[in-house]
């Protein structure tokens, strides 16, 4: 007697079996038992206990994300310096464009300068207290949020505001780093 193959049994389970297989399973106890075994195996697989990692991988993920953000910020710094220089050039050519563009250029210039200053403190290598590290992480997160907003199309006035906020946060970041560097004598 011909029996269902495993392909037939899985097709029966999926409701895609051939007419022959559907008729056969109704009359063959052995094949019904095989199909039942398939269901049981799957149920047992689903019931296996959840396996958990032996190590906490979040610190590695967090540090990698921070390092990526830092690299992005450095890139931003270079670009903002170039953009500020270009804008200054445009303003010289078109003096009537107004104070908004001047403010924008100034904020970008300040931001770039602060990025350079921050690099002097060797951001990833310094020892920080827990409190200072938390403060730095918070400031870096807030800067990352602003950087995210700066990638979206924004009106000039809003752009100036975002860049000025960025400069404010960068100044705080530099202050924390500089204070810590003086304190530990590095």
């Amino acid at each position, binding site marked *: *007697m011909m*029996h*269902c*193959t*495993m*392909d037939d*049994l*899985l097709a029966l389970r999926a409701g895609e079996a051939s007419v022959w297989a559907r008729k056969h399973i109704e009359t*063959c106890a*052995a*094949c019904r*038992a*095989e199909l039942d*075994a*398939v269901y049981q*195996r*799957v149920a*047992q*697989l*689903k019931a*296996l*206990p*959840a*396996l*958990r*990692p*032996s*190590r906490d*991988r*979040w610190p*590695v*993920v*967090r540090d*990698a*994300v921070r390092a*990526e*953000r830092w690299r992005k910020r450095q890139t931003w710094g270079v670009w903002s310096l170039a953009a500020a220089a270009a804008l200054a050039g445009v303003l010289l050519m078109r003096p009537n464009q107004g104070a908004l563009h001047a403010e924008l250029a100034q904020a970008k210039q300040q931001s770039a300068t602060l990025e350079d200053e921050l690099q002097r403190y060797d951001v990833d290598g310094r020892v920080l207290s827990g409190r200072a590290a938390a403060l730095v*992480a*918070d400031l870096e*997160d807030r800067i*990352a*949020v602003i950087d*995210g907003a700066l990638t979206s199309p924004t009106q000039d006035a809003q752009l100036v505001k975002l860049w000025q906020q960025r400069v404010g946060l960068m100044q705080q970041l530099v202050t924390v780093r500089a204070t810590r560097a003086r304190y530990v004598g590095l």
Partner: protein
Amino acid sequence: MTVALAVPDVLVARAKAGDQAALESLFRAFETPVYNLARRIMRTPEDAEDVLQETFLEVVRSIQQYRGEGHLWGWIRRIAATKALMRIRRDQLRAAEPLDEEPVGRPGTHVGANIDLERAFEQLSDTSRSVVWLHDVEGYTHEEIAELMGKSVSFSKSQLARAHARLRRMLGEGQGAHA
């Protein structure tokens, strides 16, 4: 393993804005299901931990692209499955093994012995384990598995049938009419 985890929208919104605490909360919420999926597919705990790490790095990088359509777990699970399958493919390329090759059983185990299902499952090839786990446990369709693996639907179906036939033999179930 069933994951019925509801994540508040506000947490996702904060994670999208780059909030570190929110990102860590997402990690904590999904680290076990992601690791479990990776561990069931990958051969070693170290590989599974690497998949966990790569998955969440991708989640952090791409969270802004998540549009809230469907459960967040579905989105994260797809990233995890893709990372695991990429790693398997890379390892197979390095070892120059064909994708559907059955592995040699681990020392001390014999085909046909009455071993438990978990151990029998571990004896399957990487590809077979992936197809069985994604289809039978995670609920992926053959079409979805084919897309994830860069293979055809019939490849996925035949892998599943071969894997079940092998599990049946290893569990010593092939004593009757289907032996």
